[in-house]
């Protein structure tokens, strides 16, 4: 293959992000301010955390349609515990454990009961949501605890908390994926689970673990969002799985053969966050935002798939 120019090697997502930035720079005054750019990163951070878990799940040829609802309910649970007088640390811990446990059940349904992941996670998601509604009567539960609010509003070593958490989680996920057997399991579960099995790995357990980890990450995100809105509301994040899945796919992870990785998911997250933020700054109403984001995500995926065919097609032989 003749050497292609370096420009050609840049993934198309970056071009799309750049294009969006130019457009917004022209049409949405206020987009290119330090405050707003920082805002984008702060908004992107929780999405990155869920999307990392989603990427791992998708790499196993699975999917988790329960993350949005689980996130909301974890927020509710924390808010509820704090309202009934639990100290904040314990509430967060219990909230996280509860969320992780829910998704652990997801994992069991998929790995052991062999349910198709989208059915299992959809079913469990609505069960969890129902639980959240019962707990709160469908109302939003306010959180007044300022230590809890710190999880979103505070800064640590100069970084806003969400960014700090995203960086820590990303580092943790990276080590797990690329420096421990966990990552090998993730890729192999999607690529050739039989190969894992004959190598002596308990594939049911490995699969359950991936879902559980994704649930844990969704839990962290749910708590950040609850801290941001200073409330627990079951439906607060009901559509987040769409963004998480979109970011994963835009990042180049595919549903087949365990192809992809968590690195490029950052780009997918950035694309979605830039897109949404710009629309907000430009004052586009929520209704149109939905349709528009769906469109851009689709286009980005199509371009990416075509691009990959064009650059990798020859190596298939």
């Amino acid at each position: 293959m003749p050497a292609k120019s370096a420009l050609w090697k840049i993934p198309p997502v970056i071009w799309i992000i750049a294009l969006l930035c130019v457009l917004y720079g022209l049409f949405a005054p206020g987009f290119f301010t330090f405050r707003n750019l920082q805002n984008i990163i702060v908004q992107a951070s929780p999405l990155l955390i869920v999307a990392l878990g989603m990427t791992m799940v998708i790499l196993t040829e699975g999917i988790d349609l329960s993350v949005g609802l689980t996130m909301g309910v974890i927020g509710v649970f924390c808010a509820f515990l704090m309202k009934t007088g639990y100290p904040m640390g314990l509430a967060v811990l219990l909230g996280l454990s509860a969320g992780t446990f829910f998704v652990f059940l997801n994992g069991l349904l998929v790995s052991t009961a062999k349910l198709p992941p989208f059915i299992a996670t959809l079913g469990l998601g609505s069960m969890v949501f129902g639980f959240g509604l019962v707990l709160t009567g469908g109302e939003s539960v306010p959180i007044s605890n300022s230590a809890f609010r710190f999880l979103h509003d505070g800064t640590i070593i100069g970084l806003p908390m969400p960014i700090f958490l995203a960086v820590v989680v990303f580092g943790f996920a990276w080590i797990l994926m690329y420096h421990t057997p966990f990552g090998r399991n993730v890729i192999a579960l999607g690529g050739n689970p039989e190969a894992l099995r004959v190598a002596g790995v308990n594939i049911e357990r490995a699969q359950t673990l991936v879902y559980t980890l994704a649930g844990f990450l969704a839990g962290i995100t749910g708590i950040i969002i609850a801290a941001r809105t200073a409330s627990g509301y079951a439906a607060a994040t009901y559509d987040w799985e769409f963004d998480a899945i979109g970011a994963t796919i835009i990042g180049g992870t595919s549903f087949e053969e365990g192809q992809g990785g968590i690195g490029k998911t950052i780009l997918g997250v950035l694309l979605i966050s830039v897109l949404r933020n710009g629309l907000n700054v430009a004052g586009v109403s929520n209704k149109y935002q939905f349709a528009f984001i769906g469109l851009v995500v689709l286009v980005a995926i199509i371009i990416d798939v075509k691009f990959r065919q064009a650059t990798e097609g020859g190596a298939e032989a």
Partner: protein
Amino acid sequence: MLDGEPIIQVKGIVKDFPGVRALDNVSLDIRPGEVHVLMGENGAGKSTLAKILMGVITPDAGEIIYKGKSIQIRTPLEAQSYGIGGVHQEFMLVPWLNVAQNIFINREPKRWKGLPFIDHRRMHEESAKALAKFGISVDTRQPVKYLGTAVQQMIEICKVLTTGPKVLILDEPTAVLTEREVEKLFQYIKVLQSQGVAIIYISHRLAEIRRIGDRVTVLRDGKYVGTVPVREVTDDTLVQMMVGRNITQMYPRHRRASGPELLRVKGLCVKDGPQEVDLVVHEGEIVGLVGLVGAGRTELARAIFGIDRPVKGEITVKGKPVWPKSPQQMIRYGLGLLPEDRKRYGLALNMPVTKNVIMASLRRHFRFMIDSQKIEKLSNNYINELRIATPSAYRLVRYLSGGNQQKVVLAKWLDTESKLFIFDEPTRGIDVGAKVEVHALMDKLVQEGAGILMISSELPEVLGMSDRIYVMFRGRIIGHFRYDEADQEKIGALMLGIGVKEADAS
């Protein structure tokens, strides 16, 4: 050394699958330092026995005795703890893991003892070292997806060799290798043998068994037929033991005068592949295409069939110029390709035999309504004709033995009524009995006016079946013979590029 105590004995092993008794009271013993060959028709139970020893399947009854002690092998890890390991017949690599990750899957060297952090540097070094023993130098950081099937197979072999096995099981390891790699593998087997490793070797190739086998055990329909020293048994007896009858003619060929031209390829070039290839296939002809792996045979077939785009050249089908754009288009022109990598391109593993057989020819049979009885009848015809071992036409293909899966792909293409077939390694992994059937079928096809371009790494097959033979070397056709001018030496030498001027060879 060969008379030593057996390292492993199996006694009265029984294994049932729904509708099939895969192993029925099978017993044998394996001694250190011997190459013990397992033979038998497709579906005889060879792989099932191998998997039982590797801890992937547990037997329903019977006993396994390791160095005189009765043991149970319930998991692959238990098998490993007894030093039993092997290469499976199926593809057991993970496409997007790199070479080293595949070789050390679930055995990664750790950076610190007791902690789960992988020592990548050591893993890559040791992988490269293991591959180098076979003269393979690939970037161990590449996903195995990008490598050719032969290299992938050598990776599978390195995967087990790096465990230092005491009992090494090789289930049709050479099916996707060419002579060069086979040679390396056999040399290595000799080394292992001298170190006292016991080797269980499964293959359909008599020539290989003669070269490396010490004793051979034959299975038929899951039953034990007998164990004999390789030196004391003739090919005919072995075949007789396997299929229960005599085979007189391996290559039943009725040569006829060839008819009009079916396919002409002129000056065809494929990026990084075949260069300036000219060839013709006529009606009523079987044309052999030989060469080493990497010579570009499969790439040529894929380009003609529209899978990969050629960069320049001309192709005419029955005199009409065609530029291959997609397999669908070429199928409409009457071409059929039996691909080399059947698992990936030829089969829907999760569908029954019936659907696989009909997949490429559905539209030919049915205009409006699909008649499932007719499909069943059709499938049963192929099941009988090709001797596909399956309890029913509705069995999912994934549950058939390796060789029987191949026959299903073959049936699929035979059913398309193509006029021109490209067969890429049509009898790889197929047992002797069925091989003759496949050869007879190919002969019948050309008798009826089809033309066949046959890629094969088995020279006797090419010599026995072809009317004309092309030899490919580094992407170019460097030799062309009528069958009566060709012989093993001439073609073998050309395949290796011996006698080719450097200017042509580069």
